[in-house]
């Protein structure tokens, strides 16, 4: 910095000394351009009651109908929710919940009965819901190795440090490593329809398509092993809490086994909030006019493997249809209606202010 001024001067001096014979000095006059003179054409809004008033009314008028639309849509969605944690003693799963820990090997089965008062017409999505489960905990979220899950062989035997302390079991590396995989939700839910003459029929649950397509086909991949998963995973250990190794998650369907098991993939997508639901199965709409789930009594058969009581968690089963905007959630509709109405009210207030105080600006508002 300091010298540049000096140099400039000196150059200047030299220059003038050398070129003074010509006597033509460069004109330093600034260009008269709109940009350089800061005269770019501009829109200059002035925020006064008068000028913003239309905006408020317009927003109000747009938002309220949208809100009503959303609210109606949300209300048309049918949703049924049942808590099967077994906290209270009269709950069918009370015993399972009470006695079950991660170390229990013997599965505990309980059955919950419920009644649907309205038929579910279209595809029904069956979720399990967990509450008070902090899947978004910082260390929990990090505790995975995406390269391992993507079938990277080196990561399979040497998982990322992020998986600690669920990285190795003894000397053998864990696959899938990390706390997320370790805490995989492993209750099995089976739904039965009890019709009027008390005959029980199992409802077919589809377990394909519950994960994101990209997850299933791009992100998650089994390690290469000539199609034999057992061989591919032979040098790895199962996660501590798991009853069976990863290649036995769905032994019947090789397309749903190992890392590309959809239940596993769904679980690995960590929930944003401590109360969340995850898609478990889909009940597909039957052809014809019969509803997917007619109203009536149902029986939920639970293989109770997943302890939540220790952290005061809750487990739920949710049956829901969905619309174009997702599951049942009246909030957005209400929000639109509220914001719209507030805008409208403020618009009225501004109108009053405008009429009382803002007369001066009538001319100012006319764009000149």
């Amino acid at each position: 910095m300091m010298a540049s001024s000096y140099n400039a001067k000196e150059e200047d001096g030299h220059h003038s000394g050398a070129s003074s014979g010509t006597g033509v000095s460069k004109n330093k006059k600034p260009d008269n351009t709109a940009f350089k003179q800061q005269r770019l054409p501009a829109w200059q809004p002035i925020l006064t009651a008068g000028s913003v008033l239309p905006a408020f009314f317009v927003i109000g008028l747009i938002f309220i109908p949208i809100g009503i639309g959303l609210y109606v849509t949300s209300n048309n969605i049918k949703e049924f929710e049942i808590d099967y944690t077994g906290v209270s003693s009269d709950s069918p799963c009370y015993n399972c919940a009470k006695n079950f820990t991660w170390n229990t090997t013997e599965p505990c089965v309980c059955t919950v009965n419920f009644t649907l008062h309205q038929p579910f017409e279209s595809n029904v999505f069956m979720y399990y819901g967990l509450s008070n489960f902090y899947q978004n905990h910082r260390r929990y979220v990090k505790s995975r190795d995406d390269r391992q899950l993507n079938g990277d062989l080196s990561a399979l035997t040497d998982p990322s440090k992020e998986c600690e302390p669920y990285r190795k079991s003894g000397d053998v590396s864990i696959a899938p490593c990390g706390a997320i995989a370790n805490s995989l939700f492993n209750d099995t839910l089976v739904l039965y329809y009890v019709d009027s003459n008390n005959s029980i029929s199992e409802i077919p649950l589809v377990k394909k398509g519950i994960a994101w397509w990209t997850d299933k086909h791009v992100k998650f991949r089994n390690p290469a092993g000539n199609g034999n998963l057992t061989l591919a995973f032979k040098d790895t250990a199962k996660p501590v809490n798991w009853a069976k190794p990863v290649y036995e998650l769905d032994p019947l369907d090789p397309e749903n086994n190992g890392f590309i098991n959809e239940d596993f993939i769904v679980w690995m997508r960590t929930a944003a909030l401590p109360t969340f639901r995850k898609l478990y199965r889909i009940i597909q709409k039957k052809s014809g006019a019969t509803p997917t789930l007619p109203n009536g009594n149902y029986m939920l058969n639970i293989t109770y493997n997943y302890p939540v009581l220790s952290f005061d968690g809750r487990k739920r089963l949710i049956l829901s249809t969905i619309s174009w905007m997702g599951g049942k959630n009246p909030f957005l509709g209400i929000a639109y209606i509220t914001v719209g109405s507030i805008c409208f009210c403020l618009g009225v207030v501004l109108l009053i202010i405008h009429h009382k105080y803002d007369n001066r600006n009538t001319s100012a508002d006319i764009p000149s």
Partner: protein
Amino acid sequence: MARHSEEDAGMAKAPPAARQRKKKPKENKTRTVHANILHDCAKGEENPNRHYANNKIKTTKYTVLSFLPKNLFEQFHRFANVYFVFIALLNFVPVVNAFQPELALAPVVFILSVTAIKDLWEDYRRHRSDKEINHMDCLVYSRAERRYVEKYWKEVRVGDFIRLRCNELLPADVLLLSSSDPDRLCHIETATLDGETNLKQRQVVRSFYDLDCEFDPLKYNSIIECEKPNNDLNRFRGYIIHRSGRRDALYKENLLLRGCTIRNTEEAVGIVIYAGHETKAMLNNNGPRYKRSKLERQMNVDVFWCVIILLVMCLFAAVGHGLWMFQYGDNRPVFDVLSPEGTNLSPIMSAIYLFLTMIIVFQVLIPISLFVSIEIVKICQVYFIHQDMDLYDEETDSHLQCRALNITEDLGQMQYIFSDKTGTLTENKMVFRRCTVAGVEYSHDANARRLAMYQEMDSEEEECMSHGGTLPRRDSVTSHQSARVVLRSQSTKSHRRTGSRAEAKRASILSKHTAFSSPMEKDITPDPKLLDKVNDCSSQMDFMRFHSQPMSQLPSDLSDIIDFFIALTICNTVVVSSPNQPRHKVTLTCSGQKHQFGQTSVRSKRDHLWTGLHNDVLPQLHSRLPLKSPVKTIEDFIKRFTPSLEQVFSPIPPSYDGKASWNLEEGELRYEAESPDEAALVYAARAYKCSLVGRLPDQVIVELPHLGKLSFELLHTLGFDSTRKRMSVVVRHPLTDQITVYTKGADSVIMDLIKPPDTGKRQKKIVCRTQHYLNLYAADGLRTLCIAKKILSKEEYACWLQRHLAAETAIQGREELLFESALRLETNLHLLGATGIEDRLQDGVPETIASLRKAGLQIWVLTGDKQETAVNIAYACKLLDPEEELLTLNTFNTNFSPFDIYSSSSPSSQSTPFLVHRLGLVIDGRTLAYALDKSLEDKFLAVARSCRSVLCCRSTPLQKSMVVKLVRNKLKVMTLAIGDGANDVSMIQVADVGVGISGQEGMQAVMASDFALPRFRYLQKLLLVHGHWCYSRLANMILYFFYKNAMFVALIFWYQFYCGFSGSAMIDQWYLIFFNLMFSAFPQLITGTLDKDVSAETLQQLPQLYVNGQNSEEYKPYMFWMNMIDAFYQSLVCFFIPYFAYADSDVDLFTWGTPITTLALFTILLHLGTETKTWTWMNWMSIAFSIALFFTVALCYNASCPACYSPSNPYWTMQRLLQEPLFYLLCFITPIAALLPRFFYRACQGTLFPSPVQLGRQLDKLPADIRRNILSLSRVKVGSPLCPKLPFLSLAKLWSWLDAHFLLVAGSGNIEVCF
């Protein structure tokens, strides 16, 4: 003779004594220079000059190797950088890390590298120019080849002999040993050093003065001892010690400084004394100062608050985390993962670690890009100020220079302006107006009429120019011709100072080196009465000389007149030049042309051809003794003043010769003066046919009517200095042969030095009457100077000379001794007369002052001028109002404190505040000295504050800076000092913003300033428009930055409540880190650079709007908190709308976080939108670009790698979100809901209690004619002196008044009628 030798012995004793005293420190205080050629063989080791810097300059800060460490080291001086690096490094600690450590380094590295690249580029430019300079050629003597060979500058070493040719740049500081000039002079132009364009004379060292033949370096065997390198351009002292043991003193007159240009001298040889970085020019190069603006200081406070908020948030989260852990007890839930080591952390330890983690996560709250953005915006602002056409001065082809890049916004917050008067408010272009000689006043009415005519023509010409007409080119620029053309005289560079634009152009071609000579100065109509007297007098003198009568018989009033004009002519440092040879004033050039007015010196053996008109001088000059002036030794004195030689001077050539030649050359001489009043006086004397024809170091040639050319032997020149406030010359009068001292100076000092009036009744009367006229002149606003003389007897002179010579040769304390010596000489003067010189106000000064004052600025004028002059100028420029009461504080008695008055009258003044504001305070330098005393300064300020304007006259530069410092520190206000001269430098440096007028008095003020203006009136636009804009832009940008970061960080903070305070973030770490740097960076830069709240026209027409910045209306402390609250509200909306919209759904962490990021971006941009006042296409583009950039980056990022970017692994997230209607619905409602309160508040505020700035904006929108009417109305109303201190009150009144009237008419449709 015996007496002389005694003196001689005394003289001889003195220096050794002095030397002995200084022997000790000499070792380290001086430098010894030997000639290199003596040591050529002994390369390296034995060369005595080897320790001195060579001439290679390196102004670069870095080398290739040292760049990285050094630059980083410098950057870490900024605390913020250390903070961010600390946080980035914290990330490498596994227990606390929040992000991927490498990623967390990215922003810091980015910021550091941006700065580093900037530094690198600057350094490269310096390197380039260094290289260019280092590779310039010069001639250096080579022993091997026994001739001068071309070498690069960088190869020049201390002790080298270099030969310099005309128009060459000096490569180093060189001691002049030989010059081709017959008088052993060398002329240099120092414009690159101090901006003064007049030529300066340098002399060959005395010992080499008498060399007859060409200087031969091989014969040189002396040793030079001189000072260590220092940066004082005007000081150089040392000795040259010859083989014979003789010592000769060296002066600054012997030194040629690096960077100067050799002019008018065919060839010069010198030895290099200081080279490279040790040259005075390089040592004088101080970089721009780093000032911190008020806004930045305020900002730093809020940065500090941000740190506190950050710590509170972290602490809150840490405690929350501890509690959250605690509630689970020993029973760890599956999602609470153990630490990597597998150990189970206790809640307390966990909380402590979390605290650190949260600092990392929330680091964005301290805006990392803020500092960089502010710098970028300021650079852009400086660019726009530079480009402003209104701040461009066409005549001098110069525009405003911003020398300090980081205080542009301070321009909008000024409260006090301290202005110099001369050259700042006035043109500093002196016009001789009146004079009084021997107590008789000569009013020069014709001169006044002519000046009036000038002004008329001036405006006429301006009109003509504005119609695009070009003036016919004139072939010659003589003073008579240029009389008709006129000048608006707004030039800054002296060589273009000759008049109108057309002429300025011509002049710049013709004569680059004419200082201070405008047609106005030159063209003076003499007062007929005085002219008659002069003629009368000189013819009598001629007669007397012819009859060999002693001159003392001349009537004293007549002799006073002639002495008066002689004093005007010779008591100065004016250099004469001729425009016919513009480039070589003394045209002894290679072509063999001869010195125009020069003379063959007796020692010059060369055969000189003399050009025509000076033949008459020759005989006399030929006979001139080979004496050097000033008298340097006692031997000199004896030689000069032995009677036998006196006759040489007495015969004067016949007068008719002189008369004839006088007509010829009259129009051709140009005078170059260091100060404009000198030139004015010389031109005035010329109008009375008493013209300065030539000046040499040892004599002045004056041409008088009838008497012809007279050569005054110049014995001493005691230069002007600001303490003595006078200058004197000691000459030997050729007619009377007396040693005469002519003194010219400020009347206050001269009057005190006049011989006590009891000596003669006549003198007493003269003094009395002169004083009377001086008061009259001052009342007219003229600058007054008194002229006096003194005749010394030889004995007196010898006595004085002895001590003076001792003073001159002293190395230590030479200045003080010379000063004392001057004081001894300048006593018992005989008053000749006084002159009144007009210093015209610059264009637009009264208007500028009026409008700055309306803008709420307090204007103080601090001047060195005398009180009456200052008061009159103050009235002329509307600083003082005739209706005001003047409170004048003058001290005559040291025991009297002027503030006793105030303390007794203060109760009454407080009860009537209105009266107080109509006071004007005038204080003089002596009183100011008391006022600035610790015990009185508070009282002084109290008085000064209650006055509308303050005028400090007769103040020294130090006092000026003390006043500024006092006001600045005590009142805690923003101060601006504006001045043009060296005496304003200290004031300019002390003030918050220093403004230099790149005007008539050199460049010192400009060098010291933060902003350099060509004219005073540009201050109006600089402050009112650019200052206002810069301030409001930056203030809004800083507030916005705080808001933006807080809003973004708060999103994560809210999330902590839903993730067990674990420090988890739903926003992908890439977005989190690059949000500030990329996605939201551009629009705010554009707005910060281009936003205009009110148009330039309105800002200038309604100066009241400036108060906005003075009161820091745009950025008050509460605004920071309001912004924080708003940020927290908006983040709540942006967080909870998606929260509820996705509550209890199967959304995953980052698929939920990405919409939140998007919403935050939209909200932040929309927020900026509501704060943007002018939307140009650039604003639209930048916002569109930001959004596009975000989505592009997000889409690319989310599609790039399916198994990377742990932990978020956002593969295909954005793509999926874009397919969801819910995402769009959120994007629609959230920003609107978030901005609703702010938008509503802005609308209400704009209507219910609009700020003046908002009113100004509304005014902008009105049709032009209505606007004009309103503005003219406001000028009448607000400008009234009733309440100048409260412009707002009146503005508010104005508006309410307008409400009532304007609307009424607006409704009826014919507005004009109303006004």
